[in-house]
């Protein structure tokens, strides 16, 4: 049965992108999800709140991205030993892990058959829920071994390879369980949560003025995207207008972040194909960029550059010159490297047809960001829902239909070139007003969201204010949540030694999804 949104009286929601919220009951929770699905909605994130101290229950929120706006659906549950709501996983498969994570953290469950834990890993007792307001975040609990029930594959010659969470290289921890026949992957199951830092709990003890620092640390390689999303949410709630110069510099920083990560990834992808030459060249290009970052923005990885009301450091004329020099050196080097990659038969043999994610699979599973664009899905917040200053930049959308590692490589090359263009446009006319406006203390109980297209995809942050400049609840969502399950599909039918290459071509965040 379709739901008419007007009946639900949507209310405007403070955000940097046109957003509405409406409240639904248990039945409408699923109905709205269905209606939105028919309108090509993508699930952005799910989050819960413990409002027992305020009105005696829990709330669950789902944010959907529609072609014309963002819809936040809110559902209230009465307090009971285990409050529950209908699962969205049937309509939006990406919801499954978010729901399981929420069960671990809030003790609110769904009617989903898969009720395994997702983030807990025996780190705290199963009867305690860290994000409930009566949980003391400073208490320590002994780690208890909690075996994870992997789905087993049976058959002649089928065996399992367990990889991680400790790997041979210095990388983030995650567990991958392969069921293989010979070298062929029959099934891959991921298990994460090893870098769960309790950021959401920490937000409860942070002030509104310093929350951006915590947000930047959810996934350090997306520091600008997360801190901008936080600031956008706070500024929307307090109706603060940022100076145009600050917005331009934020966009510049966001594109620098995209450049740094894409350069690093392209090098690593070459290296994983056994082409170490690529790694050294791209590492040099990335390092040049990071060194320019510290001179121009005061931080290599732009940590804490975006602050509420603006940016931390003004761009000097010298720094502007350095950046332009960097782009002039980077562009020809990149074009040359692209030629080498494209014409290297051995490398192309590794890239093409490897880890193919079909467009239909990507659509069904709700892919977002770079991964979706490499599988032929045209989506980019900067293009579809441009917020200032992207509304005046008209960024070009990059889409590749292939869905394989080669497509994800090409999207990165194209996006680097487009980012370079955007950076030059931004630098050609930086507005001359200030870099920071004062952000007043927000009223308690206000909800606002910030949405920024980071280099991986849309980073979303929902902020609910508390009294006296405190944060009641802050939910930071990394696009890796949606895209990690896709790796399990992309690897099917491939051979085990190609997995690292496929995984690197997605390069998703462990820290971001573990939270």
């Amino acid at each position, binding site marked *: 049965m379709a739901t008419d949104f007007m009946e639900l009286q949507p209310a405007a929601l403070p955000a940097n992108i046109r957003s509405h919220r409406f409240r639904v009951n248990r039945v409408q929770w699923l109905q709205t999800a269905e209606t939105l699905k028919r309108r090509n909605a993508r699930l952005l994130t799910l989050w819960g709140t413990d409002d027992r101290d305020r009105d005696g229950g829990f709330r669950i929120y789902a944010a959907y991205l529609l072609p014309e706006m963002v819809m936040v659906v809110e559902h209230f549950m009465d307090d009971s030993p285990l409050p529950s709501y209908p699962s969205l996983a049937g309509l939006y498969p990406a919801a499954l892990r978010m729901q399981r994570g929420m069960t671990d953290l809030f003790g609110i469950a769904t009617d989903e058959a898969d009720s395994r834990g997702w983030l807990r890993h025996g780190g705290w007792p199963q009867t305690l829920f860290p994000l409930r307001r009566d949980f003391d975040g400073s208490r320590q609990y002994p780690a208890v071994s909690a075996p994870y029930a992997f789905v087993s594959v049976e058959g002649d010659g089928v065996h399992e*390879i367990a990889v991680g969470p400790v790997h*041979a290289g210095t990388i983030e921890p995650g567990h991958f369980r392969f069921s293989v026949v010979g070298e062929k992957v029959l099934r891959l199951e991921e298990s994460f949560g090893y870098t769960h830092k309790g950021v959401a709990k920490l937000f409860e003890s942070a002030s509104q003025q310093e929350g951006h620092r915590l947000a930047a640390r959810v996934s350090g390689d997306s520091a600008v995207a997360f801190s901008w999303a936080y600031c956008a949410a706070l500024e929307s709630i307090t109706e603060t207008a940022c100076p145009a110069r600050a917005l331009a510099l934020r966009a510049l920083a966001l594109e620098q972040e995209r450049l740094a990560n894409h350069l690093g990834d392209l090098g690593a992808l070459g290296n994983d194909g*056994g*082409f170490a030459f690529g790694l050294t060249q791209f590492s040099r290009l990335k390092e040049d960029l990071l060194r320019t970052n510290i001179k121009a923005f005061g931080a290599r990885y732009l940590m804490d550059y975006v602050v509420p009301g603006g940016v931390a450091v003004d761009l000097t004329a010298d720094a502007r010159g350095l950046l332009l020099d960097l782009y002039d050196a980077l562009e020809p080097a990149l074009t040359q490297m692209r030629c080498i990659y494209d014409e290297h038969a*051995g*490398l192309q043999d590794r890239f093409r047809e490897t880890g193919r994610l079909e467009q239909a699979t990507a659509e069904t599973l709700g892919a977002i960001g770079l991964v979706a664009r490499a599988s032929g899905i045209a989506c980019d917040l900067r293009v579809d829902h441009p917020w200032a200053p992207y509304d005046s930049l008209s960024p070009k959308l990059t889409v590749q239909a292939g869905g394989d590692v080669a497509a994800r490589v090409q999207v990165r090359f194209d996006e680097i070139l487009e980012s370079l263009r955007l950076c030059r446009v931004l630098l050609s006319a930086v507005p001359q007003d200030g870099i920071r406006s004062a952000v007043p203390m927000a009223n308690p109980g206000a909800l606002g969201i910030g949405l920024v297209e980071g280099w991986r995809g849309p980073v979303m942050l929902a902020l609910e204010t508390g009294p006296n400049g405190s944060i009641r609840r802050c939910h930071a969502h990394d696009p890796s949540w949606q895209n990690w399950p896709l790796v399990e599909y992309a690897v099917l039918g491939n*051979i085990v*030694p190609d997995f690292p290459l496929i995984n690197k071509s997605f390069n998703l965040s462990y820290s971001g999804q573990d939270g």
Partner: protein
Amino acid sequence: MVRQFGEVLLAIAIAPLFAGWIGQCRAWLQNRSAPPLTQPYRMLRKLFHKDAALATDASPLFRTTPYILFGTMVLAAAIIPSVATDLPFARAADAIALIGLFATARVFLSLAAMDIGTAFGSMGARRDMMIGFLAEPALLMVLFNAFLLTGSTALPSVVESSTAHAFPIDPSLVFAAVAFLMVLLAENARIPIDNPATHLELTMIHEAMVLEYSARHLALVEWSSDLKLFNYACIGFALFLPWGIATPGADGSLALGVAVIALLAKLLVAGAALALIETLSAKLRIFRAPEYLATAFLLAVLGLLVHLLLGA
């Protein structure tokens, strides 16, 4: 006998140097600043000073394998005429026995890798076995080329007979040399078949087998790998670039001096060439390895055909 021991000691001593030289060349070719030439020695020294950690399920096989590996590689070095041809050991074992030695080392390393029972060990072992059973026939075919030319299966006789001619290049040897180079790369766990520098455990072949080794055991395994590469290089020199190797007729110490210098010069060039090949290629998808080694085999067979049809 002195020559025999001298040659073995020389091989043990300079094998890590050869690996270090390849590492340096590779770094330069990738525009990196290179590690010192002595880096492999420093690594060995570091490893020998560490305390060995053994997996709880390790059997004596796992512990003895590094010594067996090292022993077989030293024995192989004794058979290969790298500096002089009048080696007592070399008379006792021919090149086919040499391939047997390499196979013995492979079998022990694979068994040791599976001994621990980790997924990576057995994964590496089965991949290495696949490479091995494809590479060995190709190597045999390469050797047959030389045997056919010289009428002997002993490497010293091959060297002596080819240096006796003024210009020993035969068209069939060109095919054999290319095939040999391909086998050398595959057998020594180098790009394009394996990547010795990778940290990605799922892509490893040789490295996956030795993941559980540490300290002195790992040092011996690494040293054996260096020796294996050195041995392969010396087999290549004996077959295709035999100039300079001291033969029985020549003047004793002078010929030996020339032979050592010639060996070092050849290693210098060979190391640079290997680094160049490795820098220019990407790693092959593992299921391309059979095609790659079949090509090597085919080239070696073509060499034989060329010899039979044209050379005789």
